[in-house]
């Protein structure tokens, strides 16, 4: 556990001055607060001597003055203990984001976004509460408990001892309850996660459910799941319902003892009335810290596990490390695969085996194969989304690992099947590819990507907002926008990974012809299920289960009578069908 905490110390040390000021202010606040019952005690004792009005006024003023100091100190710790906890949160979150940007595809393949989000929000909040509130209450409570008990003992040691009798019950109760509460709490959390994924699944499959008229069945199943959740919650509630009142009750018993025994002692003359009042005052002051300790315990538990979870993220290291030293000259675009072998991290089988292929600068390679045959895996290796295991991958004769990542990725335009759009305007999304692009550049790529007719339909043109993940765009529009974004980078290597799957054949053909005509000298790699423009490709590579089964020109492969020619015929038919019917 403690090594997790240690990695969070530096964040606190940054604000050591503020924290020190805050801590001192906190201690002073507590000390001043302790003075108030003492003043009241003296006042009560004074009353029996029939004081004059001016004496009373003096006491009142002293009290107000002390209180003024208390307020001042309280302001101090609130500002200088809560403030840094927010700043620490700010720093940790910034660090985390920076770290997220450094981690690579290997990591994101393993972790769910929802889980990472929960670490960056819920866990971070737990840490903030632990660091800010937890530390604060701990210091505050222990100080108050210590001082109150000392002062009470000073006033009346035997009475203090009597009053302490019920207090161990509080801690016993606390430890007993806290374990079962946290267990139940976890169960409730897990059940909520189940509800969440049920809703998620229902909404993803809503079209099937509605087609098969499953609405009522689903509602019934959901009600059952929901009922179980209520039941688990009520079990937890039972514990809570017992816990808080027992604390209050135990403290009440202490107060009762103080009143009962104290009164006896005052009457018998072993205690003054002022002492009695002050003693009761301190006892009241004890009640909050007693509960506070329990609260701290809770915060600590959550804070520590949150720290462990965050530390896990921080200690994950990217496998793609930018070690290249030389700034490197511009990439020209010749790509060589040599005996390349690759398996996904933590996967058992090889995704790619013994790939050999050379694509000259400006050349064009079409990769075909069934789903899962390794097309995407092969393409991912070029911009170094993953590291390969064996063989070599060179660009312009230089191994990719020796090319600085920024240079490499700057010269690669990658368009995937499900392109990611940010909730921003079309212009902003395009400019992600090239921040310096002018409107003329943007116009050019829009035309080339076949987006012109769509643009005319958008009310605000380039300034149209695309919504979260681009919800307001069709799949085809997103794919073309992604192409435009990639083209805007003026890449040396263009990778189209099944990038037109949502487009109709006609549009796809038009775009491919545009790319062929307008941009010369760009090395292009296309993974596709469709045969559009395959004939014109320099080389065609067919993958099956990660190995190259066929490699050559269209004519060569057609003669081969293998997988490709069969695929081609089949696909050609569908294509022709589409073409004729268009």
């Amino acid at each position: 556990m403690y090594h997790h905490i240690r990695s969070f110390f530096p964040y606190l040390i940054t604000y050591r001055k503020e924290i020190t000021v805050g801590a001192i202010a906190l201690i002073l606040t507590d000390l001043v607060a302790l003075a108030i019952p003492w003043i009241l005690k003296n006042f009560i004792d004074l009353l029996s001597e029939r004081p004059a009005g001016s004496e009373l006024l003096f006491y009142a003023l002293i009290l107000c003055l002390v209180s003024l100091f208390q307020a001042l100190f309280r302001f101090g710790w609130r500002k200088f203990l809560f403030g840094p906890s927010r700043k620490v949160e700010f720093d940790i979150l910034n660090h985390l984001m920076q770290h997220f940007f450094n981690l690579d595809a290997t990591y994101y393949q393993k972790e769910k976004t929802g889980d990472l989000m929960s670490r960056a929000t819920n866990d971070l909040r737990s840490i903030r509460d632990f660091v800010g509130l937890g530390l604060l209450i701990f210091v505050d409570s222990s100080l108050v408990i210590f001082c109150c008990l000392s002062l009470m003992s000073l006033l009346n040691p035997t009475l203090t001892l009597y009053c302490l009798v019920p207090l161990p019950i509080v801690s016993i109760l606390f430890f007993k309850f806290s374990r079962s509460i946290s267990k139940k709490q976890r169960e409730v959390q897990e059940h909520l996660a189940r509800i969440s994924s049920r809703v998620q699944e229902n909404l993803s499959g809503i079209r099937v459910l509605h087609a098969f008229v499953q609405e009522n069945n689903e509602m019934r199943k959901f009600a059952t799941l929901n009922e179980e959740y209520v039941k688990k919650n009520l079990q937890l509630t039972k514990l809570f319902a017992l816990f808080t009142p027992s604390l209050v009750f135990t403290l009440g018993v202490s107060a009762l003892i103080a009143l009962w025994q104290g009164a006896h002692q005052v009457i018998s003359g072993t205690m003054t009335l002022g002492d009695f009042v002050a003693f009761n005052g301190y006892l009241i002051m004890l009640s909050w810290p007693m509960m506070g300790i329990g609260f701290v315990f809770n915060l600590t538990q959550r804070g520590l596990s949150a720290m462990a979870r965050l530390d896990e993220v921080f200690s994950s290291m990217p496998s793609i490390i930018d070690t290249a030293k030389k700034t490197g000259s511009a990439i020209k675009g010749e790509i060589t695969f040599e005996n390349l072998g690759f398996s996904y991290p933590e996967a058992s089988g090889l995704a790619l085996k013994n790939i050999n292929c050379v694509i000259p600068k400006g050349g064009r390679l079409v990769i075909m194969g069934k789903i899962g045959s390794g097309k995407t895996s092969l393409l991912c290796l070029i911009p170094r989304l993953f590291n390969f295991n064996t063989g070599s991958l060179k660009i312009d004769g230089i191994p990719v690992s020796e090319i600085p990542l920024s240079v490499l990725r700057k010269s690669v335009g990658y368009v995937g099947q499900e392109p990611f759009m940010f909730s921003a305007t079309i212009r902003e999304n395009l400019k992600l590819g090239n921040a310096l692009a002018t409107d003329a550049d943007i116009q050019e790529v829009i035309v080339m990507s076949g987006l012109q007719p769509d643009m005319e339909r958008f009310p605000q043109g380039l300034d149209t907002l695309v919504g979260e993940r681009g919800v307001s765009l069709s799949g085809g529009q997103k794919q073309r926008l992604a192409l435009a974004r990639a083209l805007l980078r003026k890449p040396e290597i263009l990778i189209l990974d099944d990038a037109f799957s949502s487009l109709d054949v006609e549009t796809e053909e038009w775009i491919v012809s545009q790319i062929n005509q307008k941009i010369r000298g760009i090395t292009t790699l296309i993974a596709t299920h469709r045969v559009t423009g395959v004939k014109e490709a320099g080389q065609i590579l067919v993958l099956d289960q990660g190995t190259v089964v066929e490699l050559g020109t269209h004519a060569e492969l057609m003669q081969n009578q293998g997988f490709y020619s069969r695929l081609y015929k089949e696909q050609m038919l569908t294509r022709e069908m589409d073409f004729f019917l268009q």
Partner: protein
Amino acid sequence: MSTNKHEDMQDRYYDWSLFVRILKYLHPYRWSVILAIVLLFAVSMLHLAGPYLTKIAIDDHIKINKLEGLDTIALVFMVVLTTAFAIQFFQTLLMQYIGQKVMFDLRSQVFSHLHRMSFKFFDHNPIGKMVTRVVNDVEVLNEMLTSGLILVFSDLFTLMGIFCVLLYLDWRLTLIVCLVFPFLAWATRAYRVRARDALRKNRAQVTVLNTYLEENLSGMSTVQMLNREEENFKQFRSINQEKLKEDLRSIHYSSVYMPSIDVFSAIGIGLVIWYGGGRFVQEEIQLGVLVAFLQYIQKFFEPIRDLAEKFNIIQTAMASSERIFELLDTPEDLPNPENPKALPTLKGEIKFKNVWFAYKDEDYVLKDVSFVVQPGESLAILGATGSGKSTIINTLCRFYDIQKGQILVDGTSVSAVDKYELRRQMALVQQEVFLFSGNVLENIRLGNEMVEENDVESVAQMVHSHQFINQLPMKYHQEVREGGSILSLGQKQLLAFARALVIDPKILILDEATSSVDTETEALIQKAVLEVIKGRTSIIIAHRLSTLRHVDKVMVLKNGRVEEFGTRRELLRKKGAFYKLYTLHKEQGDPADTL
């Protein structure tokens, strides 16, 4: 990224009507609520008994050195404590019970409402957003109902209770102490206005921050491919900075306000010392009253401080409830007719009469489509992407309402009958097979649990799924995870056929998958298709020419219009698009398929 920041900033002040609407959910449990409030009141009062008993102890016993009766006071105190304990326990349970019930109702309501929404709604709303409504927002609201609202009540009761006790003890002294109140009210108001503003902005910033974080995490590879790491981090940092600014601002306000309560409390005590002490000296009040006064005044300011802290929870809950109500207020797009015509068991005639349909405005996807499918007949629809094939299916099942024309099933318009009844007699096999978490059996029969396992097996045998299912380790009880990665694409399609056939539909609609599968599975699928369309009205969106061999009629769609319609023979004679396809097919010379 930067532009939508402003949208989120328009976070409103919440009004009473919203609050009243939340309270309406308590209506079914009103008696329990009233009981809970009464219990709460009792607990608050009992907790105030301590100082009063102290007063009695001082005035009636200590001052006059009277020992007898003191034990009675201790006993009363003990009874008070025990009662308070029992009531508080019961009250907490009751309140949580109510909260859970309300949450159950609300969550079920939101869930059911989602199921009433049309496909159009789901086309436009991201899933994540809706999951948040059903799960997180309801949770927040529950927290407010059970802890927030209740604590507010208990604080208010305590305040009132103390005030009454003070008045009873000595009204003059109470009035003097009241001098503090105007200043306290002024400070509270000043704080509330500022804190609300800071909280509001803070919450908006948190939303922006989380959206940005989520977006970057989901699109990380895009970000990295585009070398945007540094730029995006800068942007993230600046949003984070804005959030920190509002955070610190609200901390500053509470850092000023909370201690100011100390000062007010001290002034109150000071007034008691000065004025009350004076009155004691003049023997107008007893010492016990004075001591009780001092204790009560200290307790008086606790709930005030508490109420200020509660402010945050309530504001957040209001924002959540507003989002939930917004969803609940989204009207049903395709309501069932008020008096639906009875729909007897279908014979299966389908008739499209001059149907016009557009997903949006005047952008017609189906233009004047008319055709008839006789009962038991099968129809294949051919057409390019976007020609309106899927739309025909969607309108036939009444997932969308058409703008002009009529769609008739056995002579009755689909919009005049109960849509659930209609869909129950149809089966739709979609291109992408969606598998639910659960086992194979559950995935085939879905919610129709009265279908016996034997029946499922025999259906599976008919569509050639039985063989591969039997090879799974747990056979029909094999768990398939969401997405169904243990099954191949072709196997999933076969499973979907079984799913359709198990309900023995009168009308079968099949949207053929475009993706290619291996030759053996392909042959199985073809055989299965033949099986499922046998003896029932079927509409197939064909992506394979081989499928056309099995059907009675073919329709060619082009840009939303029926280009050709008829039997295969008729269409071949017509020498149109279908003929061209056919000849092309022959040229390719695939011996396996002859039309």
